[in-house]
């Protein structure tokens, strides 16, 4: 979906105004600290994955997404997932054995993370050096193909193997697709606004088509 979260190349958002690195606190209010911890802790219940979590934050009116602060969007996402998965009602019924990690369990989960590399199930369609295009309008569900790259021509510069495909994973379908690093020339993305950069983006195979040479 090309929602409020899909920000690459948007005009009019103003200066960045970074806080000096040495003076910036990790959290700017106690409620931010609580939202962060609650989001990670409830994620550890295994009732949703990281792509469902991202999609829950994205599925908002773009005006709300942009007006709210970062952790406010996390809070909206968490409330939505709890509601959609009926987690509070299910917990009240006490019919399922939900495994709630304690401190030690949480520490282990943070230390092991969630690797996304999977065994190859199909040969890779593209090789390093191939020229590829990104078709426009790839669907209204969760996707990791930014709007600014849709329609552009790029070159495969790396192949990372088969990784859990975000678009399917956000629908609860954990399957792998080949993942590539694709490099785009600044001018092909931004025309005469380009500052001479190139931009490399991680793109899964279903996002790509072989370029007609």
């Amino acid at each position: 979906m090309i929602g409020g979260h899909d920000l690459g190349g948007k005009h009019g958002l103003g200066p960045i105004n970074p806080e000096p690195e040495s003076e910036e606190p990790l959290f700017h209010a106690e409620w931010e600290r609580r939202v962060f911890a609650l989001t990670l802790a409830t994620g550890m219940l295994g009732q949703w994955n990281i792509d469902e979590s991202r999609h829950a934050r994205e599925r908002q009116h773009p005006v709300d997404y942009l007006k709210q602060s970062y952790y406010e969007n996390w809070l909206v996402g968490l409330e939505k997932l709890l509601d959609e998965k009926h987690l509070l009602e299910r917990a009240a019924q006490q019919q399922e054995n939900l495994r709630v990690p304690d401190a030690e369990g949480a520490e282990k989960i943070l230390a092991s993370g969630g690797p996304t590399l999977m065994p190859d199930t199909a040969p890779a369609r593209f090789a390093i050096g191939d020229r590829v295009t990104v078709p426009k309008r790839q669907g209204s569900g969760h996707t990791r193909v930014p709007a600014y790259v849709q329609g552009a021509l790029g070159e495969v510069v790396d192949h990372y193997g088969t990784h859990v495909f975000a678009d399917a994973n956000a629908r609860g379908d954990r399957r792998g697709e080949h993942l590539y690093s694709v490099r785009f020339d600044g001018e092909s993305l931004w025309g005469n606004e380009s500052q001479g950069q190139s931009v490399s983006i991680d793109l899964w195979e279903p996002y790509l088509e072989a370029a007609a040479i």
Partner: protein
Amino acid sequence: MPHDHDHTEPPSDLELRVKALESLLLEKGLVNPDALNTIIETYEHKVGPRNGAHVVAKAWSDPDFKQALLTDPTSAVADLGYMGRQGEHLTVVENTPSVHNLVVCTLCSCYPWTMLGLPPVWYKSAPYRARAVSEPRSVLAEFGTELPESTDIQVWDSTSEMRYLVLPMQPAGTEDWNEAQLQALVSRNSMIGVELAKPASAAAQRDDES
């Protein structure tokens, strides 16, 4: 700024909403209070940019480690004990006189937690996410970073679970410095790519002040 608010004011709607949610989750037994403390403790005290600075300083002072870091970054940093959430698949991109790397996540806030901890507010902000890909030189200028026109800028948009760490250029005049001395020159921002590593004189100045 929200953290400067007067504590005699009544709590905001947001504070109340979060408190209510936390109470409900605790009451239903869906979260463990000790686990919440551990999560906060981990990112406030254990996992942060010191990890990345250690890795960079080691790469500057140990050519074999640098080679391993560029070849198989995830394993190279795991050998130092750095692994886990948001660092499962690491790529290290090296700055040189001809190429400068800059990392962003235009779609959310993907960031190499195992190396740098949680991202700063500006990294997650709409202006940075919008402009890092389209006008990186202007973005760098806002951080006070000017690069020669002959230096190419390579932007990495973190759209998958690959996480990118910038290996900054080693500051001139530090060739014989040890790892601990070098580490003091590696800012968090230099490992995102919005700044360069601090010059050798920064360490001298700090010594003068102490």
